[in-house]
């Protein structure tokens, strides 16, 4: 077993912390026990499938097209997740798909076009996963916040419309707020890098025996790519989402119900 490998026994033992989480949930009547068990089981099944798939896709003999196909699959899954988390927003699947696809194209194009990482299945799939995973989160936050603003700040938005402002102008203060809230956590993460926490990729590389300085370089490159990608996704989502909230004649639409569906 190589340095940093986790044995099956080690994996099972790590579940002892999950048992603590279940016990705490039961003790405090949080009713999260079932959710925790399902989440753990899903993580095992999903990641095992991913491991098998990745082994095939990133094998040196496999054409790179399969890796790009994998990336397309991630984008589709991200759009479906955004859609599930903010059902009340009209056209949310298209928004999620367009925002994440745009971000993936720009971020991966720059990353591999500029040679930050060599373009191989071994780099493409994990980098795309991290970029789109973070972009998806910011997309969800922006869409949920925008839809909530329509409910909570309807009077203020309509007061602006009544003054002859366009829909996009009327909602601009709330778009800014949603963008700040979606991007700020990542800026905090970047600021706290190495002090408060050691990020996942770097930790994984160090555990796998890579020199810490090399691991830091990889991590920094990834964080910068992700920061740009999140800002891009949030902006694209806000732009498209804000448009969907108004009719062609600049009336604010009424959303069916709360957007925090999942």
């Amino acid at each position, binding site marked *: 077993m190589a340095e940093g490998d986790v044995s099956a026994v080690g994996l099972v033992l790590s579940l002892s912390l999950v048992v603590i989480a279940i016990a705490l949930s039961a003790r405090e009547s949080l009713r999260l026990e079932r959710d925790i068990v399902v989440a753990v089981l899903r993580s095992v099944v999903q990641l095992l499938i991913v491991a098998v798939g990745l082994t095939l896709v990133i094998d040196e003999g496999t054409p790179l097209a399969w890796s790009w196909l994998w990336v397309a699959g991630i984008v589709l899954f991200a759009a479906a997740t955004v859609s599930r988390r903010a059902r009340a927003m009209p056209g949310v699947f298209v928004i999620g798909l367009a925002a994440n696809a745009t971000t993936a194209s720009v971020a991966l194009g720059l990353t591999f076009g500029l040679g930050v990482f060599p373009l191989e299945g071994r780099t493409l799939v994990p980098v795309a996963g991290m970029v789109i995973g973070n972009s998806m989160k910011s997309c969800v936050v922006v869409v949920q916040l925008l839809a909530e603003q329509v409910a909570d700040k309807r*009077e*203020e938005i*309509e*007061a*602006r*419309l*009544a*003054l*002859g*402002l*366009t829909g996009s102008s009327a909602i601009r*203060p709330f778009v800014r707020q949603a963008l700040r809230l979606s991007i700020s956590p990542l800026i905090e993460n970047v600021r706290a890098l190495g002090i408060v926490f050691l990020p996942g990729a770097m930790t994984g590389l160090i555990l796998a025996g890579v020199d810490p300085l090399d691991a830091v370089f990889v991590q920094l490159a990834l964080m910068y790519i992700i920061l740009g990608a999140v800002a891009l996704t949030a902006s694209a989502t806000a732009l498209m989402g804000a448009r969907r909230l108004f*009719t062609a*004649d*600049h*009336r*604010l639409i009424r959303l069916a119900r709360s957007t925090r569906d999942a």
Partner: protein
Amino acid sequence: MTPALFSFERVTLDGDERPRLDDVSFEVPDRGVSAIAGPSGAGKSSLLRCCNRLEAPRSGIVRYHGEDAAARDPLAHRREVAMVFQRPVLFAGTVTDNLRVADPGASDERIAALLRRAALDEGFAARDAAALSGGEGQRVCLARALATDPHVLLMDEPTSSLDEETAGMLEALMRDLAAGGVPVVLVTHGEDQIARVADRVVRVDRGRITGVEELAGGAARARRRTTDHGSEGRDG
């Protein structure tokens, strides 16, 4: 013959359970203060919102000066048909910031003039909008609505959250605006307020028009009363 200010022709506006407006037809003339009265949920605010296109009817036509309002540029239409809402809705920033949302190029002199039209002295210009009282806030909203130089002013129960004295002041301002050539369409459910300020009243119930009354001598009566508004009762 001069076309009506607003003319509703068989207008139906959908609602959650029943139509908010149900096959409504009536006219509002281009002068004075026209009140729209009725119980809560009758469709008064919906009528007003159709006037400045915050709502679009499912069927029927809303005409503005004889022209189909739906065929007009919605942004230009809203600047011409200004609206003051039930509760003062103030934006973040100072009073000047609020007025410049409506008129981004407004000079300090213009801001002062708009405040005076709403019975506020120019010292309010630099005040934080969030720190204003309800009455002051509503008058800032009026000044902000006037910043678009509207041809008509829609007011949706603008005095419902104000004390008697401030409400009286706002009523006097409505009369002044109407006398100065800016007709006012006022949603209210207060009969006393109608008697004080309105020249006519359109009565609404359950999304239908139940009557239109021209109040003989309404304006003169209102002028007399608004000079002494502090002694009048108010239920608007």
